[in-house]
């Protein structure tokens, strides 16, 4: 692992020490990013999103570490750690770099390794390469940029047959710079070997209120019969741009269950691509986004059913107040080969203000004939009848509203199996609601 204070090795030196296949990956992805270009409002994939803000700011990708004093971060990290429970394995990543000093020591935990780039290249080059082989396909311009421009990465490896009793909590801290706008290309790879299982959460926070870009990729590889319960929480400041791409690759009999939560951020875009590449795979993609003021959050999910007899479940819920904008785009692609696919998608949103906007687009492309695919979408104001019922019994209007919003989100939140994480998320939701109306 790299010490935060230690300056990054010179770019030239760094690239000299990298293997050829890695360098060609960087090169290929940079070309891909250049070919794809930056988004334009006409872009199919960015339409309906207010992207001017995103494009108006020129960012730089810092080549060296910002001079963050570890002491300043320590307190922040300690406070956050209080929420994760005693059994948690805390991993701290600052501006894209894994921090040894701030993270818990995992050397005594059997079957788990958490490594930086150079360590990964020594220990798991083949596994890293196999993940990259899937990433190469991706046509998301910001993911390509991350693939090309990351200077370090965090590789979480779970060995075969290992079922981790303790949850892993990754805490991603980013800081803005007062003179330039920084883009941090944070890269995480999670590799679950055969028959392994774990709970892992990713939480994104800002260290200051200065505008910064987080350009994130989290690639997740599940070998056969592996199982991952994943929670991602975007809780950066309302000044941040947050672009998150997760590429999930699943093998036979594996189970991936994910909950994607957005509270913070000025502009957040989550892209989750799941590729179900064998039989009897289960993939659950759930999410809740709660927005106010001018916040923007877009959730693009893509489920690729490539083989027969797989299941996917998807529930996204949005709560939008003030002049916020939400977007849900749920793509389900059932290949010709993928008979007996069972895919359920539902997407619901409550608009709490006249000025809030939501765009939704389910996209079902089905090329197999014997499948069960359902999708539903409901968007509307808060239902008056339950509100009146609660008020008539004595709950204040504010409490009644909050309780109903909470109940609306609960269908998703109650699927989070880790009590600490679920409670924190519930508190965060209450906190956000209570600072309003």
């Amino acid at each position, binding site marked *: 692992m790299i010490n935060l204070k230690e300056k990054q090795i010179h770019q030239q030196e760094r690239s000299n020490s990298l293997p050829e296949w890695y360098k060609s990956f960087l090169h290929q992805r940079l070309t891909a990013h250049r070919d794809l270009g930056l988004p334009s409002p006409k872009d199919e994939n960015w339409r309906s999103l207010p992207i001017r803000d995103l494009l108006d700011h020129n960012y730089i990708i810092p080549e060296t570490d910002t001079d963050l004093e570890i002491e300043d971060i320590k307190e922040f990290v300690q406070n956050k750690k209080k929420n994760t429970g005693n059994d948690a394995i805390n991993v701290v990543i600052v501006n894209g770099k894994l921090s040894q000093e701030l993270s818990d020591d995992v050397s005594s935990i059997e079957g788990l390794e958490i490594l930086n780039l150079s360590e990964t290249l020594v220990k798991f080059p083949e596994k890293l390469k196999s993940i990259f082989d899937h990433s190469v396909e991706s046509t998301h311009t910001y993911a390509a940029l991350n693939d090309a421009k990351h200077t370090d990465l965090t590789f979480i490896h779970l060995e075969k047959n290992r079922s981790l009793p303790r949850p892993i909590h990754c805490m991603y801290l980013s800081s803005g710079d007062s003179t330039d706008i920084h883009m941090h290309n944070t890269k995480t790879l999670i590799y679950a070997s055969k028959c392994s299982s774990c709970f892992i959460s990713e939480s994104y926070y800002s260290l200051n209120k200065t505008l910064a870009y987080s350009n994130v990729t989290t690639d997740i590889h599940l070998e056969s019969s592996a199982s991952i319960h994943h929670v991602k929480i975007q809780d950066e400041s309302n000044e941040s741009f947050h672009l998150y791409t997760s590429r999930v690759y699943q093998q036979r009999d594996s189970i991936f269950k994910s909950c994607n939560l957005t509270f913070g951020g000025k502009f957040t875009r989550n892209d989750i691509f799941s590729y179900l590449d064998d039989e009897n795979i289960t993939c659950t993609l759930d999410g809740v986004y709660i927005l106010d003021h001018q916040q923007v959050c877009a959730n693009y999910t893509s489920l690729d059913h490539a083989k027969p007899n797989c299941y996917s479940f998807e529930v996204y819920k949005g709560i939008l107040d003030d002049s916020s904008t939400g977007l849900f785009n749920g793509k389900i692609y059932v290949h010709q080969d993928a008979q007996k696919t069972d895919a359920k998608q539902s997407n619901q949103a409550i608009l709490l203000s006249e000025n809030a906007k939501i765009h939704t687009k389910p996209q079902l492309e089905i090329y197999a004939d014997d499948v069960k695919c359902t999708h539903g979408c409901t968007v509307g104001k808060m239902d*008056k*009848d*339950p509100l*009146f*019922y*609660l*008020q*008539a*019994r*004595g*709950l*204040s*209007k504010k*409490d*009644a509203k909050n*309780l*109903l919003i*909470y*109940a*609306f989100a*609960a*269908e998703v939140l109650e699927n989070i199996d880790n009590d600490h994480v679920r409670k924190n998320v519930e508190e965060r939701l209450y906190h956000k609601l209570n600072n309003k109306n």
Partner: protein
Amino acid sequence: MIEIKNLKAKIEDKEILKGINLTIKPGEVHAIMGPNGSGKSTLAQVLAGREDYEITSGEIIFQGENLIELEPEERAWRGLFMAFQYPVEIPGVGNAYFLRAALNSKRKYLGLPEMDAMEFMTYIKKKMEALELSPSMLSRSVNEGFSGGEKKRNEIFQMAVLEPTLGVLDETDSGLDIDALKIVSEGVNRLKDPSRSFLIVTHYQRILNYVTPDYVHILMDGRIVKSAGKELALELEEHGYSLIEKELAANV
């Protein structure tokens, strides 16, 4: 207790209450009967403070205070309770949590300390048993998946917990089997008290056999057209509303 004066209400430009006058004194039980669509539920909902209705004139004086400008919760805190004709299902909101929150907001208004979960359980145990509600319903969502009869018993249970000064029951007897009707009526009778009043909206005489009204009013087309003692309900049961209509026609 409550004095309703010349109350007029409309919804979407349609006038539904066309000048209601009604006074209920402490300890009294009043029944309101009337054909479908005559405005009974509208009256109940307007009393409870539903904002979809526009009050175009009149006053609702409850214990000396005009309720018209108050939010539904503010009316509940002051001791008004309305049992819904169609209790609302609220998925995701637990019964126990909801009812304790309701009770505690009223207690807070009254300057009483909050009840914690333990005290609350002790407080409600007997009340639940009396209404033959299974304790498992506490952990279920409000009214979700309840049978029609369970929903109505739950309304009376909530009333027993919140101990209002005026209980407005909107067709709580509809859809109940004979045993449930008895359980619900006994629930109401247990709450009878010289300082507590009831306004019972019903279509049938049968609940009035258990809960004896002091007055029976007939609401037709948004107005109370006739008021009398409990014998009026029996008369209605026998002759229906046509007799009243004839009487009214004769008076014109």
